[in-house]
Each structure stands twice: as structure tokens, then as C-alpha cells.
């Protein structure tokens, strides 16, 4: 298939068995992929194959099953690393984005951050890219400052520049906001931060599943993402880190697998990335993530991105026409990811989600783990529709019809 061809949504949908189920007697319209995506049968099959034909522990088993499991686990690492432009030695398997930022907070932060240091994050971050830095600042006596936002919901780069003058130790930024959909120019942010001597960590939870990502080009020190939002299983994700930095860092957790030698009074560490993978790793889900990477690679990430931009453009045009509809974030669909946060008149998002659920439509409602951003938007909560490869124009039409029904019930 040529890269210029559009995504064949019907063909994609056939790979997702869950999409054939009914919810409250209606066709399932799944618009909550930013929370977690659905899984294609190829990913489910990879888990079944592992458990039913070569289940075994990895790395130190010399028997056939152990060698097969090790090969599959490391092949998954290789494919996942290449998928984001990294080397496999630089990819640590973790539970997800939250564990990745916490790993950096402990293994890098406890080692390199000192009293009085400045840490910088932004107002559009998920709690997973705020709270670890609050905890680090508290334990080290460091300061945490925020880059604010413009009216359009993009980063206030002037504020970033003024904070960079204070030589921060760390700049933490999301690649794509899980609420506003804003895609940040992380290449620029990282380059500016690097010039100021700061380490950089990019939250890729909402970007890796939806667009081509090349961490080498971004030039960050750390890049974090979750498997379950990119068609993979829950409980697996990745932290990509620069090798020299990973080597200088302390271990995250101590135990089996992460050591080279253990003595009574001290231990030495395994090579990266194994130094950060203590205990029996999540073998099955890593292999499942490898299958998800294969699936997305097969579709072509540029095509995935084009599909979502088209859907977003259609959704914004269609829904903006509704009475009382207000969306948040950049107005140009080509500058945002596949999430659309909105409110409809004075209907609370949870009431809206309840009404839509009755129509078989799954959306997210609440603060989306971004309470500082909710306060900045001056809303208690928002509703959020988010797209992935299996969503179609029909799904947007269903959402519109559902919102019209909610409007009638609430007499908007």
C-alpha cells in the first residue's frame, strides 16, 4: 500500500473484535482512546501465543522455552525502540508513562538535583508529569515552576525563555496535551533547554500512538510513553533515555535482573537498560506491545496521523455548530492531536457522559488528571472525545446526535 493512500477504516475495524459488541443495545462508539485504546486481534493473539506455547522466564533460562521468550522479549524492545527512533539499549520497559517519570524522579533526580535547584514543567501537563517533580522538589529542597499557556492553549515560550535564564536542572514537557490536544514543538523546547544546561523529559503518552515520533530528532534526554494507549496491553510502557545518562544514573528498584554481582556489603549493576528492570519483567505485555508496534507500522504512522487530522477537522466543524458547544485548545486541527475537550452549555460532563452512554457512546468526563489545567481553563471538568485508527466519520455523527439528545433532555 502506498503511504499516500488513506487509511482503510473498515479494514482496520475488522481487526478489533470489541467494536462489534453492543452497548445498551446500540453500536459501540468508542471515543475514549486517549484514556486507553482498543486492541487489535493481532495483539491479543501475541499474548495467547506467548502464554500457550513458550511461556518462560527470560534472560537466565538456558532451556528452549527460556531462549524463545528472551528472544521475543528483546525483539519487542528492538521494534519498540526503532518505532520511536531510539536504540534498544536506550529503551527501558516500565509499566507506563507514570512509572517512567517516577523512574527519572528517583534514578536521575535523587542523584543530580540539589537544594535550591529549579525544575520546570508546564500548565498543560498530566499529573504524571507534575506530581513526581513536586515530590522531587520537596525531597531535595528544589523549586518547581510552570510555563503558562497562551489564549489558544499553546505554551508561553516567553515564560519558558525567562525560566531558562535561571538555569533549571530539568524541563519536563508533554509532546501532546491530553486535554487541549496541543502538539508542542518539543524539538525547539528541548534544544532551548539543552542550551540552558537543563535535562529534558518529554511525555509522549498522547503522541507515540498517533503520529510519527523520532526521539533522536527531538533531542530530549528522556522520552516516556504507555503501551495501552497505542493498541498494546496495559501494564507496559517505555522510558527512552540517552545511554550516557542512563549509565550515570542510580538504579530505580533493587533486586533480581538489575544486578551484575551481589556481595554482602554491596552490589554492582547490570548494563543498561537491564539496570532499570528489576525483578521478573512483564514479558507477555512487552511482546504484546511489540505486536502493537508492528500493527501501527503496518498501517504507517503518517497515514494514522492524516486520518486523525481529517477526523478532528470534521468533528470540530460538525460539533461547533451545536448550540452551547464550546471546545478547548488550538482551533487549527492540523496543529493538534486526536483529542477534543468540550462542554455543552451548563451540562456537567458526567451528566453528559451518562446520557451518551445510553446511546452506546463512550467518552471521558472529568479533570483528565490535569487539575492545574482545569483551573487555568476555569472549568471544574470537561468532556473529551478522542480518536484512534478505528474511528470513522460515522462515530462523529453518532456523537453529534448524542449531544443533540443531551441538549434536548437538558433543554439547552
Amino acid at each position, binding site marked *: 500500500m502506498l503511504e499516500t493512500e488513506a487509511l482503510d477504516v473498515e479494514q482496520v475495524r475488522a481487526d478489533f473484535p470489541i467494536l462489534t459488541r453492543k452497548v445498551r443495545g446500540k453500536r459501540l462508539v468508542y471515543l475514549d482512546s486517549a484514556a486507553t485504546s482498543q486492541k487489535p486481534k493481532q495483539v491479543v493473539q501475541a499474548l495467547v501465543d506467548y502464554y500457550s506455547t513458550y511461556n518462560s522466564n527470560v534472560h537466565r533460562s538456558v532451556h528452549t522455552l527460556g531462549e524463545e521468550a528472551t528472544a521475543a522479549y528483546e525483539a519487542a524492545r528492538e521494534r519498540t525502540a526503532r518505532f520511536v527512533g531510539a536504540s534498544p539499549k536506550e529503551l527501558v520497559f516500565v509499566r507506563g508513562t507514570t512509572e517512567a517519570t517516577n523512574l527519572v524522579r528517583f534514578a536521575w533526580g535523587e542523584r543530580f538535583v540539589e537544594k535550591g535547584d529549579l525544575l520546570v514543567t508546564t500548565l498543560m501537563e498530566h499529573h504524571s508529569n507534575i506530581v513526581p517533580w513536586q515530590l522531587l522538589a520537596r525531597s531535595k529542597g528544589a523549586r518547581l515552576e510552570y510555563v503558562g499557556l497562551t489564549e489558544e492553549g499553546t505554551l508561553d515560550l516567553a515564560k519558558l525563555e525567562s525560566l531558562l535564564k535561571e538555569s533549571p536542572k530539568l524541563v519536563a514537557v508533554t509532546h501532546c496535551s491530553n486535554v487541549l490536544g496541543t502538539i508542542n514543538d518539543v524539538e525547539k523546547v528541548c534544544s532551548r533547554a539543552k542550551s540552558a544546561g537543563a535535562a529534558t523529559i518529554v511525555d509522549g503518552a498522547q503522541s507515540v500512538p498517533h503520529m510519527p515520533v523520532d526521539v533522536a530528532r527531538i533531542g530530549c534526554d528522556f522520552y516516556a510513553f504507555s503501551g495501552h494507549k497505542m493498541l498494546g496491553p496495559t501494564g507496559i510502557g517505555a522510558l527512552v533515555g540517552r545511554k550516557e545518562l542512563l549509565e550515570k544514573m542510580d538504579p530505580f528498584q533493587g533486586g533480581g535482573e538489575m544486578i551484575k554481582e551481589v556481595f554482602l556489603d554491596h552490589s554492582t549493576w547490570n548494563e543498561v537498560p537491564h539496570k532499570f528492570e528489576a525483578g521478573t519483567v512483564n514479558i507477555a505485555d512487552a511482546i504484546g506491545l511489540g505486536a502493537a508496534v508492528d500493527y501501527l507500522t503496518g498501517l504507517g504512522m503518517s497515514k494514522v496521523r492524516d486520518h486523525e487530522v481529517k477526523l478532528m477537522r470534521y468533528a470540530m466543524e460538525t460539533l461547533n455548530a451545536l448550540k452551547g458547544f464550546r471546545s478547548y485548545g488550538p482551533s487549527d486541527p492540523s496543529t493538534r492531536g486526536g483529542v477534543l475537550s468540550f462542554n455543552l452549555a451548563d*451540562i456537567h460532563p*458526567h451528566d453528559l457522559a*451518562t446520557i451518551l452512554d*445510553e446511546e452506546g457512546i463512550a467518552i471521558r*468526563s*472529568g*479533570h483528565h488528571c490535569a487539575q492545574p489545567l482545569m483551573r487555568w481553563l476555569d472549568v*471544574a471538568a470537561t468532556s473529551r472525545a478522542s480518536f484512534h485508527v478505528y474511528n470513522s466519520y460515522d462515530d462523529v455523527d453518532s456523537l453529534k446526535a448524542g449531544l443533540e439528545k443531551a441538549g434536548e*433532555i*437538558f433543554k439547552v
Partner: protein
Amino acid sequence: MSSADIYRELILEYYRNPRNFGKLDRFDIEAHDTNPLCGDEVSMQIRVGAGNTIEEIRFSGKGCAISQASASMLTELAKGKPLGWVKGLSKEDIFKLLGTSDLGPSRIKCALLGMKVLKTGVYGYLGAHFEDSDADPTR
């Protein structure tokens, strides 16, 4: 039950025009709670009258229609009742006020937030004003 039934006229009316909404100048009981799922917030203030009755009650807060309407309806029901009446209050009473119990597990918490706040406040007050005579089972 359909959502059109859950959000029937009465709930919408209480959501848009809540009864007993606001603050009291003088009060003896104050309690507050939140439901992190929805971000619902409910505060209640009560002035205790003669014979340990709920002489005046107000609530304030923000959140979904179910949480705000049920809190408002509850204040209407509670006004004039003895404080001890709160002890017997159950979720069925709230469902009766709302006219439905078919809310689903995640939304029931919204419906019961007001009752939780009322009980928290009144139990605290009763505990703090507990007298030996209260412990006499013959009274």
C-alpha cells in the same frame, strides 16, 4: 430506565434553581465533602434549634446535576427534623427523592454525596454534644 427519566423535570429544576442554596450567617454545624470522580463538591451548614432540631439548613457546591439536585432536595426534607432523624437516613430515602435508584455504580456516589455531608456534620455535632443522659437506654 433511560437517561431522559433520570434527568426528569424535577432534577433539572433543582439543578438550575437549587432550593436552600447559599450560606447561613449563624450556624452550629458545617461539613464539606467532595467526590473526586466528578469533582462534585457539597458543603452544608445547619443552625440547631430548640429540642435539637434542624432549624435552618443551607448547602453550597458545584458538580453534576445528580449531586446538586439530591443535596438540595435533602435540605428541604431535613429542615425542621430532629438531628437524630439523620441517623436513620438511608440511600433508599435519596433514591425516593430523586425518583430513581437506577443510576449505575459510578453515579450513585454523586447521588449520595449530600447525605454523606449531612451525616458527617450531624454525627460530629452529636458526638461533641454527647451527654451522659444520652447514654441512658431507658430515656
